[in-house]
């Protein structure tokens, strides 16, 4: 922590304080993280029983299992990130704090990113274990792709979670709104994952990787700019 507690931090300092607050709440209760984790593990197991290993190889099935799991468990965490603020109208306290609204978004987004990466860090080894996957050689590439995709998923998911938190049926509305936006993230990520698991080099997937990177750049920027407009004045 660079800024002393009494002074008003800059945009990134404020974002870090908010992210730390969210992560501290999550670390102490672990409610959402455990739910997301259990959901991931259960879906991995259900996928296994819906699978005929003589018809489809594990390497062909695993990318789909991984990305369906990451997408839905991630949504669970993002939905919660603004849910915690609705209790006791904590959101109002955040809004009157003398920090830029963009900082609130970046803080929430960063906490969500840590959440999604945390789920990924346990779900990937679980898939490797249950499906007997040779992940070893592709690990670095996979980790990079998972991080890039997690950035795209969390920035869009955080923005929509903030919007839907105040509506009725928020937990239904968030996936309906966010999933179309996840298409250009999940499609490259799943394709690259499939190729890496099949032992092909990352260089073969450069077009997909560029698409993923471009999505991250455009949407982190666009969602950060759009977030202040979602809040009431």
């Amino acid at each position, binding site marked *: 922590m660079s800024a002393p507690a009494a002074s008003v931090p800059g945009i990134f300092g404020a974002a870090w304080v908010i992210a730390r607050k969210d992560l501290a709440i999550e670390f102490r209760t672990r409610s959402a993280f455990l739910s997301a984790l259990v959901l991931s593990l259960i879906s991995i197991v259900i996928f296994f029983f819906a699978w005929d290993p003589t018809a489809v190889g594990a390497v062909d099935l695993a990318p789909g299992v991984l990305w369906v799991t990451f997408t839905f468990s991630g949504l669970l965490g993002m939905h919660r990130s603004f849910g915690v603020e609705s209790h006791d109208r904590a959101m109002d306290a955040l809004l009157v704090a003398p920090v830029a609204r963009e900082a609130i978004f970046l803080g929430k987004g960063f906490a969500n990113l840590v959440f999604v990466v945390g789920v990924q860090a346990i779900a990937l080894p679980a898939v490797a274990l249950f499906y007997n996957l040779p992940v070893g050689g592709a690990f670095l590439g996979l980790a990079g792709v998972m991080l890039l995709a997690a950035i795209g998923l969390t920035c869009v998911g955080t923005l929509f979670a903030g919007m839907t938190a105040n509506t009725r049926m928020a937990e239904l*509305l968030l996936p309906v709104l966010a999933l*179309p*936006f996840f*298409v250009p993230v999940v*499609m490259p990520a799943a*394709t690259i994952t499939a190729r890496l698991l099949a032992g092909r080099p990352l260089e073969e997937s450069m077009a997909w990787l560029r698409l993923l990177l*471009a999505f991250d750049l455009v949407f982190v920027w*666009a969602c950060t700019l*759009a977030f202040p*407009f979602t809040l009431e004045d």
Partner: protein
Amino acid sequence: MTKTDLMTRSEQKSSLDWLAVVAFLAIAATYVRAVWFTPPELLQGYAQKIMYVHVPAAWVAFLSFALTALAGGFWLFLKDPRLDRFAESSAEVGVIFTTVVLITGPIWAKPIWGAWWVWDARLTLTLFLWFLFLGYLVLRGAVHEHETRARYSAIVGILGALLIPFIHLSVYLFRTMHPMPIVANPDGIDMPPVMIKTFFLALFSFTLLYAAFVRARYAIAAERDALDDAAAADR
């Protein structure tokens, strides 16, 4: 203004909607021409005639979504409720036309491509566009406060416009990686003049129909907003 004032006002306004009449006449003229005065295509036969529904509907679908995003963008700066009502009307009409595209496409694809659905780049893009704007409408339905609803819709509309190129790129990359056996090319560039004329007549009449639908839908939105305001004032 009270609720009874509004009701009499809406009754007085129920005169003939000339735009809708013109649009329906244009649509009728298009199909008279398309069915009786335009020859069937050499290779595809009568199946090709669905183009006079499918392609104009697709044009209107993309037009309506572009205008929805644009109206949302302007709303963020002007805060004019008329822009939001227009965005709402345009999105709803757009969903209807996209549904027409998604229904007529497979009807044509079955005899020509041999499958109801192919994961072709354009098909997939249209499908996701449909999902995107269904989400938009669901969001509108879930928010009641006018300004909040307008604000949220504007943001989803603008982000949706940003998203379309990305979806297009990814489905394009996906398709080129897995080439599909496509028997016929749906591009209608080499059309004889008689078909081109019918085609442009269809484009024109569908655009008129879009305008008529949006106008009618806008009137409903305006009445609803006025009624909401009156109810709020009565309270």
